[in-house]
């Protein structure tokens, strides 16, 4: 059995699956159920300043998009940070840590961007016995209008400044949660690192309008005829999150900074992908909100089985394994040539590959009267669109032309050597070969 125990910037947990700071970690009741179900850790719902707690809307706070059979693909929310008094949260956190000492308990924090607030609250929270902090610089709605959340996360200087204040206030690990609502994730990640962050976590939700109620002409969720931008999450955001995680993992200035991967993780496979791209652990929210806490059992058993089958004995061995293979476009091998191949045994004759190629791609698939589809090698640019639109697994595949073979599209012999854009004759900035 693969060892799933995790040590993320010094915070230990029996598995690398944490629940992200969100409604599932709002209070002792939920967190207790989550730990009983088997979650490795939780990041408690974001705590704010002492005093009257914030208020939430009293109409709908979530909106969603669905796939077939109302499978939830994307969720959007306009909920704010905890709306419960600080002292109650702290009391419950202390109890939870006492009852579940082997699980990770991290406090998410968001207070106004003034030193006194941060330096006041961090030690208070530390007394509960939490294992670390996560600075919420991500929320894109409500709190950002008050100069917090993503309003901080969008200004690298603020990130660095607040991170420093926190590091000065505690010896516990400080994780900086990043917003994806920026142009280049490297800037905020670098700022966190410069501020002394022990890790970053990403992504927080993406600023979004999930849909429009065409009857009432208002965004969803609609509150008394009005709607506002919310934070988008769930399976639909995973590709965006994967890219940002990979960018941080492979860019020199941020490489090595521990990453807690967040964004649409629904299955063990999603988690493995995040970890392969450099995430040291993962945080889950929407999947738990959709299916309940028991999904953790699929995640741990799936990851463990897959690791066993592939010879990984600990999660550390997986982390970052795919990072060396993430590169820039200009370094992709232009001499690697493939052609689409259709398995006629598997083909069910739907013709989607034909429609896609004929209407929107390179007119490289032929269709016979009796609905046999074939690839024209002299037109196929290997775009992969047919593979992506085909409803049958492995019916269309991309097969490599070996060096020495002729690419019928160009009439050229496939070269053996690697050759990329930087040295391509069509590249005006080509560096002349020595």
């Amino acid at each position, binding site marked *: 059995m693969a060892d799933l125990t995790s040590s993320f910037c010094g915070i230990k947990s029996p598995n690398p699956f944490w629940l992200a700071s969100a409604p599932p970690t709002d209070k002792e009741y939920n967190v207790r159920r989550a730990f009983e179900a088997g979650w490795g850790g939780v990041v408690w719902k974001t705590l704010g300043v002492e005093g009257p707690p914030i208020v939430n809307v009293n109409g709908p706070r979530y909106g969603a998009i669905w796939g*077939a*059979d109302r499978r939830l693909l994307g969720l959007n929310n306009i909920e704010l940070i905890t709306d419960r008094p600080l002292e109650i949260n702290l009391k419950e956190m202390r109890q939870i840590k006492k009852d579940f000492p082997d699980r990770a308990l991290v406090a998410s924090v968001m207070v106004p961007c003034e030193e006194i607030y941060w330096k006041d609250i961090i030690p208070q929270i530390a007394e509960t016995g939490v294992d670390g902090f996560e600075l919420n610089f991500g929320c894109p709605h409500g709190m950002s209008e008050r100069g917090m959340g993503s309003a901080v996360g969008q200004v690298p200087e603020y990130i660095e400044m607040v991170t420093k204040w926190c590091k000065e206030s505690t010896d516990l690990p400080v994780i900086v949660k990043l917003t994806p609502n920026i142009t280049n994730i490297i800037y905020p990640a670098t700022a966190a690192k410069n501020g002394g962050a022990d890790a970053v976590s990403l992504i927080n939700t993406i600023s979004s309008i999930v849909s429009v109620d065409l009857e009432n002409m208002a965004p969803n969720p609609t509150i008394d005829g009005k709607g506002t931008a919310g934070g988008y999450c769930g399976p639909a955001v995973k590709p965006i999150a994967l890219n940002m995680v990979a960018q941080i993992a492979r860019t020199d200035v941020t490489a090595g900074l521990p990453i807690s991967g967040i964004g649409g993780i629904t299955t063990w496979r999603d988690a493995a992908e995040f970890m392969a791209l450099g995430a040291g652990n993962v945080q889950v929210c929407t999947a738990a909100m959709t299916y309940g806490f028991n999904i953790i059992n699929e995640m741990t058993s799936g990851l463990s089985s897959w690791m066993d089958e592939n010879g990984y004995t600990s999660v550390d061995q997986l982390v970052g394994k795919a990072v060396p293979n993430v590169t820039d476009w200009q370094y992709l091998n232009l001499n690697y040539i493939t052609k689409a191949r259709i398995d006629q045994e598997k083909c*069910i004759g739907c013709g989607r590959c034909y429609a896609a190629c004929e209407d929107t791609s390179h007119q490289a698939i032929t269709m016979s009267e009796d609905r046999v589809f074939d690839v024209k090698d002299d037109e196929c640019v290997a775009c992969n669109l047919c593979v992506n639109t085909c409803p049958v697994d492995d019916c269309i595949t991309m097969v490599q032309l070996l060096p020495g073979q002729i690419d019928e599209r160009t009439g050229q012999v496939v070269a053996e050597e690697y050759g990329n854009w930087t040295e391509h004759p069509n590249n005006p900035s080509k560096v002349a070969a020595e």
Partner: protein
Amino acid sequence: MSNNSEVGGPLAGRLDQISLKKNFSDLHPPLDSHEAAVAADRCYFCYDAPCVTACPTDIDIPLFIRQISTGMPVASAKTILDQNILGGMCARVCPTETLCEEACVREKAEGKPVQIGLLQRYATDVLMNVDDHPFERAPSTNKKIAVVGAGPAGLAAAHRLALLGNNVVILDAKEKPGGLNEFGIAAYKSTNDFAQKEVAWLLKIGGIKINYGKLLGRDFSLSGLRDEYDAVFIGAGLGNVRSLDIDGESLGNVQDAVEFISSLRQAEDLADLEVGSNVVVIGGGMTAIDAAVQSKLLGAHDVTVVYRRSVEEMPASLYEQELAKSKGVKFIYNSRPVQIVGTEGISSIKFQNTQHDTEFSLPADHLLKAIGQIMDELPLELSRENNKIKVDENFKTDVANVWAGGDCTSIGEDLTVTAVAQGRDAAINIHASLSGEI
């Protein structure tokens, strides 16, 4: 539950009302909107879709299914009805397992086609329930066309002709419209008086008048129609049935299956219908299946379909045969009747096995003959082919200004959907011909 299925002789009220109601409820319950969304999502929106090719009325099936999945069932129904004005009935009675759903690529992929028939029913039901008739007539052509028969072919022709601006008079021998939709389809395929509702909805197009109780050759003549109208469309169906021509055929309780089904469809109370304890159905088409299944559902103890050829040759689809078996109907193949035995009513039937040349006997107190329908006598001026009206590819007969379509013609399968297609296409040709377009 009362059940006196073993009491001999055709007998009414073998089952109580609760059992009858259950037995004759919808064969395939309709999809609700969520089920329709899930079913619609399975459609791959195939290029040049095989299901469309397989549909005699060429409904744009991927389009109507996509319209369901985008929440526009009324627009979806319009797509269906544009091609097939009786799309609601066809959704219920089409042998989809040998048409669109057999061609569906998911049938090939998984053995589970997209539920095209049920989706078509969903969309058309929504439209019928909002009582919308989304067609508007073209400006009047001042042409008058007679349509003989208010069955699927005649109704489809009439609607298309009216749509194109012509005035139509339908003459039908019965007292109600619908033809086989009303008198011939199994009751559990057309529940809640759907055939009548559909005709009432169809007539909302305007410009169509129906005269009932008018039989061609008895109450009016083809030449009379040709004098009075600009064109004539004959969709008279097949008004007669074949006989077995064997001893004992005139005994009591020997009945044509068509008549049995028709009285069942018209019954105010199914408990009033008489059915035997040992019912034998002779034949192998849909009429045989429908008669056999409904006999069983009325409470017959034993129902056996005897077909003279092999299981593979049976015109009723395997799906229909399976349905009948699931209801308890037995099948005997490769056997033909040689004698009906009895005194006043029948008591048994002697059969000959056509492969082994052996004879056997089945006890029977009710025999239903379903060996095929044939034409009523027809006006002599119409040419025949295979004992049906000869038409060309535009459904024109040999007589000037006379078209024909549906079961009474020599081309196409005898299916509701084929009749609709022929009626529609004949109408288009009539209109083009009268307006001088061709």
